[in-house]
């Protein structure tokens, strides 16, 4: 059972080996994945293409079996069936029966999910409204655009009002308007107290949406935690803009503080460790320089992501 009911997804030491083609050699896709997702949070599962994100999600959905390790959702083994009443899933580039209309496909999934007949029409109408497809509800899915299919995909994932929703690359291939609509829907889920597990490689979406992330590179988790905890205090940096700084002093600062120096002439910008800012300002003021601005620099998720990829490449 989940600890104190907060753990919605619990993965411990999941390994997945596959045999590509007919050969006997095994290829390891997932190397002992362990992660935890808490109730009510938006969890980003981040990694480059081919890292194993979709494989992990398919393990959680019971579509493929782990070679070893254990995965549970809401305290149930992922191989079970009935608990999926509380689970919604949007696969990457979802495919549906295109001979059905939007309304028919939602009714189909609602019936499969055990939604009561009396409540079905209202629920279907509500979801069509949420995903802004009420006007296209009676058109066949083969006439839908990619963005519309993505939205009907979200609607089918939510048709039975699940506790936890798994989304695989929900924003992939969408235009800016489509991405915003999906982002708004995800935030709406969070407000409703739902848990969202989201696979993505679009880092700006992660930064905007996710409470916690796990970075997966080459089948291994390189980091897991809150975005703001990505860097400890020692690594936080600030951008200091100075004017009137003598050229020789700027070079000395660069050497002494290991600072990154940008600009030239009388106006320079230095990126230094946060703990060294006071020291640098004192020295700059003593040398007659003027402080234009001091801004805390928030390292982008992209930088961390690239760092994780590089360290994985180095270790391999």
């Amino acid at each position, binding site marked *: 059972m989940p600890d104190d009911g907060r753990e919605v997804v619990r993965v411990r030491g999941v390994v997945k080996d596959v045999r590509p083609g007919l050969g006997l050699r095994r290829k390891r896709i997932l190397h002992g994945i362990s992660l935890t997702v808490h109730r009510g949070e938006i969890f980003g599962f981040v990694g480059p293409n081919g890292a194993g994100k979709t494989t992990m999600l398919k393990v959680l959905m019971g579509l493929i079996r782990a070679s070893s390790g254990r995965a549970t959702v809401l305290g149930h083994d992922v191989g079970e069936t009935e608990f999926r009443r509380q689970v919604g899933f*949007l696969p990457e580039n979802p495919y549906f029966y295109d001979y059905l209309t939007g309304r028919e496909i939602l009714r189909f999934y609602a019936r499969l*999910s055990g939604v009561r007949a009396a409540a079905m029409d209202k629920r279907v109408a509500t979801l069509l409204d949420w995903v802004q497809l009420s006007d296209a509800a009676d058109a066949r899915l083969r006439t839908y655009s990619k963005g519309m299919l993505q939205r009907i995909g979200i609607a089918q994932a939510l048709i039975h009002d699940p506790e936890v929703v798994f989304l695989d690359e929900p924003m992939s291939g969408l235009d800016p308007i489509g991405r915003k609509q999906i982002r708004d829907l995800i935030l709406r889920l969070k407000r409703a107290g739902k848990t969202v597990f989201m696979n993505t490689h679009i880092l700006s979406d992660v930064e905007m949406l996710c409470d916690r992330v796990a970075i997966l590179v080459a089948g291994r988790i390189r980091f897991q935690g809150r975005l703001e905890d990505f860097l400890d205090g020692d690594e936080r940096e600030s951008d200091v803009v100075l004017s009137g700084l003598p050229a020789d002093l700027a070079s000395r600062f660069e050497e002494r503080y290991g600072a990154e120096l940008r600009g030239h002439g009388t106006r320079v910008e230095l990126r230094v460790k946060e703990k060294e800012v006071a020291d640098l300002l004192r020295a700059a003021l003593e040398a007659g320089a003027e402080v234009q601005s001091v801004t805390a620099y928030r390292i982008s998720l992209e930088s961390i992501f690239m760092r994780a990829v590089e360290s994985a490449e180095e270790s391999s």
Partner: protein
Amino acid sequence: MISPLRIWVIASNTVREAIRSKLLYALLFFAILLIGTGVLVSALSYVERERIFQDVGLAAIRLFSVGIAIFLGVGLIHGEVDRRTIYTILSKPISRSEFLVGKYVGLVLTTWLQLAIMSVAFAAVSFATGAPIDLAHAAAIGLTGIEVMVIVAVATLFSAFTTPLLSSLFSVGIYMLGHLTRDLRQLGAQGDVEGFGTFTVVIHRVLPNLESFNLSLHAAHGLPISAAEIWLPVAYGIGYAAALLCVAAYVFERRDFR
């Protein structure tokens, strides 16, 4: 816990897919055309015109029923995996076995629906040409329905783990051998090649004996049909199809959808 409701949701949607497919209407058109052609063929003969028409008609019904069953059956499960429509379905509270059985039931109902339409066409042409229609014809067509159940189960089994091309080859092969097992067994019993007799016995036991579903001769020639000639093949067909579905479900439950 197996849920008949969930099986029905999948089955009814499979029927709906067939009803909305244009290709199926084309096949049905040709089947009815072939039944009608029986009238022309029989016109070439001076004797037993009704019998010749009904022979051709019943053969057309059997051929098209089995053809449609194999044609649709071989892609039944594979198509869902290939088009990835299965991902969202299996993320709902439905087991793989329920899904497989639902698809099977849906396809059997589809082929029965087509069988019913072809039978109406057959009866209409018989009525128009004055050929006699009796319960023997109904029994022959009914057993074709049971044979189709078995063939759909064979195609479903192969579709659960291999490609439509291989499934087609296997299914057609089993259909052809299935009509020959009785003859093969007799051949094996008469022959003196070592091991061949045992081989034909094994083939006869393992493969479906599809000739047991063939009452066309009885119907066309007005031969008497005993009750056992109906209920024994019915029980055999249902049992055989159920056994195949169990194997298919076993294989399907263990598959990875990568």
